[in-house]
C-alpha cells in the first residue's frame, strides 16, 4: 500500500529573504502546486527555535517529507537533517536573492525564480523515498587479505593486528620479507640520518609469525576472488595445487615490484662485463660478505666504484622506464657508504642528473655522504666498456661541459623498479554495439599479458586498474588510497615508486582504509566520496533489456552480470555516483532518494511561461561537488546570472539520464546547460569516468534536437571546476544569450 505523503514546507525569511521575496506567495505555491500539507514561514529557521518548530510539527502533523526553503543545501547541512524523513532544500538564498539585483524591475522574475524552486523542491520531496540500508551485507567478515609478504604486507598485518583485526598474508614465494630481505642495510629512518641502518626485517617477520591474528600462506597465490567488501571470498592456492576458499572483509594488494631488466642496457655492457652490476646485486654481495664487497670477477680489490643513476630510467628510449623510481639516489648514497665503511680510501663516484633525495631524511643523508667523501658528479654516462681488468666509463661532465672518461673497478647501475600490477582491465576498452554485444576490435591487441594477482571475478576485469606507467590505481592527490575497486587498496611500490620508510607508512594507511570499508559496509554505508550514503542502486528487472550499458560503464566495476545478462549490483562495491542510472536507456535503475523520477519531476514542475511571455527557461544540471559549490560561491560574491535559470544539483554528471534532456526540451525549456568536472587523463571527476560518460552520451543528443527541429546550441555540456566562481555564472549567461539569439522553444505546453 502506498504511504500517504505528507510534506511539510518551511520557508525561511531570514538573511534578507523576507525583504526580497513574498513568502505568502511561496506558501501558496507550496500548498497549491507543491501539494504540501503543511506550510510555515520562519524568520530564522536554522535557529534552535526554527528546528524545534520543524521537529514539533513532524510529530503533531505526522510529516514524512520536508522542504526547507532558505539557504543552499551545502549550508547548515547537519542542522536540517531529520531522522528518517526525506528532505529537499529549495535554494532561495544563494540560488535566488544573492544572484539577482535588488530592484523593482527584477523583482517579478526573482520571485518567479523562488516560486519555481519551491515547486521543484516539493516535487523532489514527494518523489524521494526514505533510504533504508542495504540488507546485502547482513553477515560480514572482518579479516583482511594481504597479497604480498614483503615489508608492506608484514607492516600491514602487524598494524592491523594492533588495531584488533585479523589478517592473512598470501606470499607467492617460499619466504617472507620480499625485496628488503635481500638488503644488507637500509637507508636511515631515524635522525640524524647519517648512516645506513639494519633493516630489522627479521624482527618484523618474527613478529608477524608469532602473532595469532596473522595467518601466513607461503608459496601461495590468490587464484580467485569474488564478492564485495565485507564478503569477499578468495581461493588461496598452494604451489602444490591445494586450494581453499576463505572469507575476507577487505583486500590490500602490496605485491611490490620487479627489478628493471638491466640486460637490455647494452651501452653499459651489463651482459658482457662481470664487474657491471645492478644495485640489487651489490646488496646481495654486501649481505653475503657482511659488508665486505668483493669484485664480482674475483680479480683484485675495488679501488674505484662508479654509480650510474637513472640507468634505463627517466628515458624515452624504447623499453626504458619513463619515470623515476624514487629510491635509487638514496640507495646509491647508502651503497657508496658500504665502501667507505670498508675502506675510506675507496673512491666512490655517483653520476647523476638530478640527485633526488627530498625531505628531511634525504638531504641529511646526502650531506652525510658528502662528508664521508663520496663524489657526486652531474654527468651523463654515454657508455661503459671493458678495459683490460678495468672498466672504462665515458661520460659528459655537465659541470665542466666536456666529454671525458674514468677508469673503474666496479660499475653499479641504478636500474629502478617495475610495478607487479596485474593486467589492466582497461588496457583494451570494451565497446558495445547497438544491441549491447561487445565489439571485437582486431586493431586493439591485448597489450597486457601479465599474470593476474587478484583473479577478480568482476565484469570489468581481473585486477585493479592502472593509473600510469603500469602502477595500480590510486587517486592521485587528495585521496591516495581510492582505487576504482572498492575495498581493495594498493600499498607500497605497486602503486607508486617509494622507499622503505614511505612503504611502511603507506601500508599502515592502507590498513586504516581496509578497516573503514569493513566497518562501513557492515552498516550499508558508502565509501568515499559519498561516505556514509545509505542509498544504493535498485533496478526493476521487468523493464531491463539486458543491454549491459550499466555493467560496462560503472566506473568502479561494481556491477556483474548474471548468465542472462541482467545486472547484479554489489552494493558494497558501489560508490553511489549514479553513472549506471545515467547509462540506462530504459530508466529501470534508481536510488531511493535520487532517481530519474526525482529529477524529472523537478524539471516538469517548473512553471513554463507561454512562448510569447518572453521568459525563457534554462535548465542547469550541475555536479554537486564542483559546479554547484562554484555557483554558491558566486552567489556569495553577488555575481549575478539570469533569472531564467533553474539549477538542479546532480550526484555526478554521469548520472544524467538522456531522458531528462529530451523531456526538458519537449516540455519547453529553451536551453540546457550541463556542468561536470574535467575529463580525460587529468580528470577531476571524483567518480573517475562519470563526467566523461556524460559528455559521450550528450554528444548523441543532437539526434533528439534534430528530430524536434531545435538548434543544437540549446544544449551545452561544460567542464566546470569548483574554482570557476566567475566562469560558472558566465556559462549560464552565455546560454541566455543563445536563447535570445535562436529564439524561444516552440514546444511549450
Amino acid at each position, binding site marked *: 500500500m502506498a504511504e500517504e505523503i505528507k510534506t511539510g514546507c518551511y520557508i525561511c525569511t*531570514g*538573511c*534578507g529573504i523576507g525583504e526580497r521575496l513574498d513568502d505568502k506567495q511561496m506558501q501558496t505555491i507550496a500548498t497549491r502546486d507543491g501539494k504540501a500539507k503543511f506550510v510555515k514561514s520562519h524568520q*530564522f529557521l*536554522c*535557529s534552535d527555535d526554527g528546528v524545534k518548530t520543524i521537529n514539533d510539527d513532524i510529530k503533531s502533523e505526522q510529516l514524512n517529507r520536508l522542504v526547507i526553503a532558505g*539557504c543552499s543545501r*551545502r*549550508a*547548515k*547541512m*547537519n542542522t536540517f537533517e531529520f531522522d528518517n524523513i526525506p528532505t529537499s532544500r529549495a535554494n532561495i538564498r544563494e540560488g535566488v536573492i544573492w544572484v539577482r539585483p535588488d530592484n523593482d524591475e527584477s523583482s517579478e522574475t526573482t520571485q518567479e525564480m523562488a516560486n519555481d524552486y519551491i515547486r521543484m523542491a516539493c516535487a523532489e520531496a514527494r518523489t524521494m523515498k526514505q533510504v533504508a540500508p542495504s540488507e546485502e551485507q547482513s553477515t560480514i567478515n572482518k579479516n583482511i587479505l594481504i597479497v604480498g609478504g614483503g615489508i608492506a604486507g608484514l607492516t600491514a598485518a602487524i*598494524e592491523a593486528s594492533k*588495531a*584488533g583485526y585479523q589478517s592473512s598474508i598470501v606470499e607467492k614465494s617460499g619466504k617472507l620479507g620480499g625485496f628488503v630481505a635481500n638488503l644488507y642495510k637500509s637507508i636511515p629512518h631515524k*635522525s640524524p640520518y647519517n648512516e645506513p641502518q639494519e633493516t630489522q626485517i627479521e624482527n618484523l617477520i618474527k613478529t608477524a609469525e608469532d602473532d595469532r591474528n596473522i595467518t601466513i600462506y607461503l608459496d601461495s597465490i590468490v587464484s580467485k576472488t569474488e564478492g564485495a567488501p565485507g564478503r569477499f571470498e578468495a581461493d588461496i592456492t598452494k604451489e602444490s595445487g591445494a586450494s581453499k576458499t576463505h572469507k575476507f572483509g577487505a583486500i590490500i594488494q602490496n605485491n611490490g615490484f620487479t627489478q628493471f631488466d638491466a640486460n637490455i642496457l647494452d651501452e653499459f655492457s651489463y651482459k658482457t662485463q662481470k664487474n657491471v652490476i645492478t644495485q640489487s646485486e651489490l646488496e646481495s654481495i654486501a649481505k653475503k660478505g657482511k659488508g665486505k664487497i668483493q669484485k664480482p670477477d674475483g680479480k683484485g680489490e675495488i679501488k674505484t666504484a662508479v654509480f650510474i643513476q637513472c640507468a634505463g630510467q627517466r628515458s624515452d628510449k624504447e623499453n626504458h622506464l*619513463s*619515470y*623515476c623510481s*624514487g629510491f635509487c639516489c638514496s640507495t646509491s648514497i647508502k651503497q657508496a657508504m658500504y665502501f667507505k665503511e670498508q675502506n675510506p680510501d675507496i673512491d666512490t663516484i655517483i653520476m647523476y642528473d638530478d640527485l*633526488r*633525495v*627530498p625531505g*628531511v631524511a634525504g*638531504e*641529511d643523508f646526502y*650531506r652525510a655522504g658528502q662528508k664521508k667523501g663520496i663524489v657526486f658528479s*652531474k654527468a651523463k654516462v654515454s657508455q661503459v666498456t671493458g678495459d683490460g681488468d678495468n672498466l672504462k666509463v665515458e661520460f659528459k661532465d*655537465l*659541470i*665542466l*661541459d666536456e666529454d671525458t672518461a674514468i677508469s673503474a673497478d666496479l660499475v653499479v647501475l641504478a636500474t629502478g623498479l617495475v610495478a607487479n600490477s596485474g593486467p589492466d582491465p582497461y588496457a583494451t576498452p570494451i565497446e558495445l554495439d547497438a544491441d549491447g554485444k561487445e565489439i571485437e576490435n582486431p586493431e586493439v591487441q591485448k597489450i597486457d599479458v601479465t599474470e593476474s594477482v587478484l583473479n577478480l571475478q568482476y565484469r570489468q576485469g581481473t585486477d585493479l586498474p592502472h593509473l600510469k606507467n603500469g602502477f595500480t590505481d590510486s587517486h*592521485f*592527490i*587528495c*585521496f*591516495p*588510497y581510492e582505487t576504482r575497486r572498492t575495498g581493495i587498496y594498493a600499498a607500497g611500490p605497486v602503486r*607508486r*615508486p*617509494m622507499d622503505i620508510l614511505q612503504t611502511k*607508512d603507506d601500508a*599502515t*594507511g*592502507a590498513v*586504516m582504509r581496509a578497516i*573503514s570499508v569493513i566497518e562501513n559496509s557492515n552498516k550499508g554505508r558508502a565509501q568515499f*566520496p559519498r*561516505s*556514509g550514503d545509505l542509498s544504493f542502486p535498485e533496478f526493476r528487472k521487468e523493464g531491463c533489456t539486458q543491454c549491459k550499458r550499466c555493467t560496462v560503464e560503472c566506473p568502479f566495476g561494481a556491477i556483474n552480470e548474471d548468465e542472462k545478462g541482467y545486472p547484479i549490483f554489489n552494493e558494497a562495491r558501489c560508490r553511489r555516483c549514479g553513472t549506471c542510472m545515467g547509462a540506462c536507456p530504459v530508466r529501470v535503475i534508481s536510488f531511493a532518494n535520487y532517481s530519474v523520477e526525482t529529477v524529472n519531476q523537478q524539471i516538469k514542475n517548473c512553471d513554463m511561461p507561454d512562448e510569447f511571455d518572453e521568459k525563457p527557461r534554462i535548465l542547469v544540471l550541475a555536479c554537486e*561537488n564542483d559546479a554547484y*559549490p562554484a555557483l554558491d*560561491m558566486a552567489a*556569495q*560574491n553577488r555575481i549575478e546570472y539570469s533569472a531564467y535559470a533553474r539549477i538542479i544539483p546532480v550526484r555526478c554528471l554521469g548520472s544524467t539520464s538522456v531522458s531528462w534532456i529530451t523531456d526538458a526540451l519537449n516540455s519547453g525549456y529553451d536551453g540546457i546547460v550541463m556542468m561536470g568536472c*574535467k575529463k580525460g587523463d587529468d580528470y577531476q571527476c571524483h567518480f573517475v569516468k562519470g563526467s566523461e560518460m556524460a559528455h559521450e552520451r550528450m554528444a548523441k543528443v543532437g539526434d533528439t534536437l534534430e528530430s524536434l527541429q531545435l538548434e543544437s546550441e540549446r544544449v551545452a555540456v561544460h567542464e566546470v*571546476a*569548483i*574554482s570557476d*566562481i566567475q566562469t560558472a555564472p558566465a556559462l549560464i549567461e552565455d546560454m541566455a544569450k543563445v536563447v535570445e539569439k535562436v529564439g524561444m522553444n516552440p514546444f511549450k505546453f
Partner: protein
Amino acid sequence: MAIATNQTILIVGGGISGMTAAIEAAEIGKNVILIEKRPFIGGRVSQIYKYFPKLCFPTCGLEINQKRIKQNSGINILTMSQVASVTGSTGDYEVVIKTSPRYINEKCTACGDCATVATSEIDNEFNYNLNKTKSAYLPYSNAYPQRYVIDESVIKTDEGKKIADSCKVGAVDLSMQESETTLKVASIIWATGWQPFDADKIQPYGHDRFDNVISSVEFERMMDPMGPTSGKLVRPSDGRDAKNVAFVQCAGSRDHNYLKHCSRICCMATLKQTTYITDTYEDGKADIYYIDIRAIDRFEDFYQKIKNKDNVNFIKSKVASITEDKKNKNPVLNGVDTEGYHRYANSYDMVVLAVGMQPAMDTSILPKDITINEHGFMENNDNNGGMFAAGCAADALDVNRSVQSATAAALKAVQVVNSQS
C-alpha cells in the same frame, strides 16, 4: 562543547592532514576533536590555487572532506584554538586548550550583513597580507565553519557596536573572552603543518626591498580569481603584465644559513607555476634556477612535459644575489650557471622565490621525551607513546604524501583507542 573521554582522539591542526586523520578515525565511529589555530579548517591547501601535477583545484577535495565532516557527528571542531599544555601518557592525556574569541557564535548564517556595515580594514592573512579585508570577514568563500570573524581591533569601537547591531540573528557577541578548556584524550595526532619560510630573511634576494620579488605562496594567491589581483598575473610594482618570470629554487631550503632540509614540494610547485605564466601569456617565459629538479617518481612525466616547452628554461645555479634595475624596477638575478661556468646578470619582470617549508609546531608545549629532530619535525617512534605526527609535522611532504601519512597516523591513534576498551 566537546565531550572528551579516554576514547577520544585529539587532532591538533585542521589542514589537509588533520582533516584526513579526523575523517578516517570518525568514519569508523571514533570520537574526534579537531582543533585549529585559524578561524577555518583547510590550512595551507586552501590557499593554493592549483595542485601539481594535475593542475586541479584544492577546493574540490576540500569540499568533499568538508561534506564528510559536516555529516559526521563524531567530529567536534574547535577553531581559533591552540594547545597550551599536554600532560599524561598513552590512553590518558590531559590537554589544555586555549580558544581565542571569534566574537561570532554558532548562530551565524554567513549572510554577510556584518561585513556590509564594517568600515575599517585589516590585513588579509588568507592572502598573505597582499591586500586588505573588512574587520568583519569570512576568511575565504568556501571557509568552513561557514561563519564570519570579527577582528579584535573593532571590538571596543563604535564600529564594533554597529557590526553587532547589524546582525539580525544575534550571532555577534562582543563580550566573548579567551577561554580555556581541559580535555582528557586517549591519543593525540599532531597535524600542525608548516609555514612558508620567511623570504625576508634571505637578505641577498631582497624580498623585503624589491616589489617585484615575491614568494611562491604569494604567487598562488595572486593567481586565484578571488585573490588580491583578481587572478591577474601582474607585477606588484606597477601592475604591468609579468611575462618574463624567474623562479629561484631552494630559497631558504638546502641551505646551512636557513633550512638545512630539502622542502620537497618546491620543485614541483615551480614546475606547476610556470604553467600559470605560459597559460596566461602566449609570449610568456619562465626561467628556473635550480640545484636539482626533484620531480621524484611519477612526477617525472610532469617535469618532462614542462622541460619540453620552448618557453621554459632550466639553469643549474644557486642564485648569488638579486638586485633591482632602478629605471624599470626589474629584478636582476646574479650568479654563475654551473653547467659550463658562465656568469650571468639576467633581468626579469618578476621573480618568484620558491620558499621552503618550516615546521609550524610549537615544540615547547610537548613533553620532553617526544622525539623532535634537529629540523623541528616530530619523528614518529615508540617513545612518543600515544602521540603521532601526521603530514608536514612529520616531514616536508606534498599533499598526497601528507594524506598518506595522516591516514597512517589515524590508524595508530585508533590502535590506542581500541586497546583501551
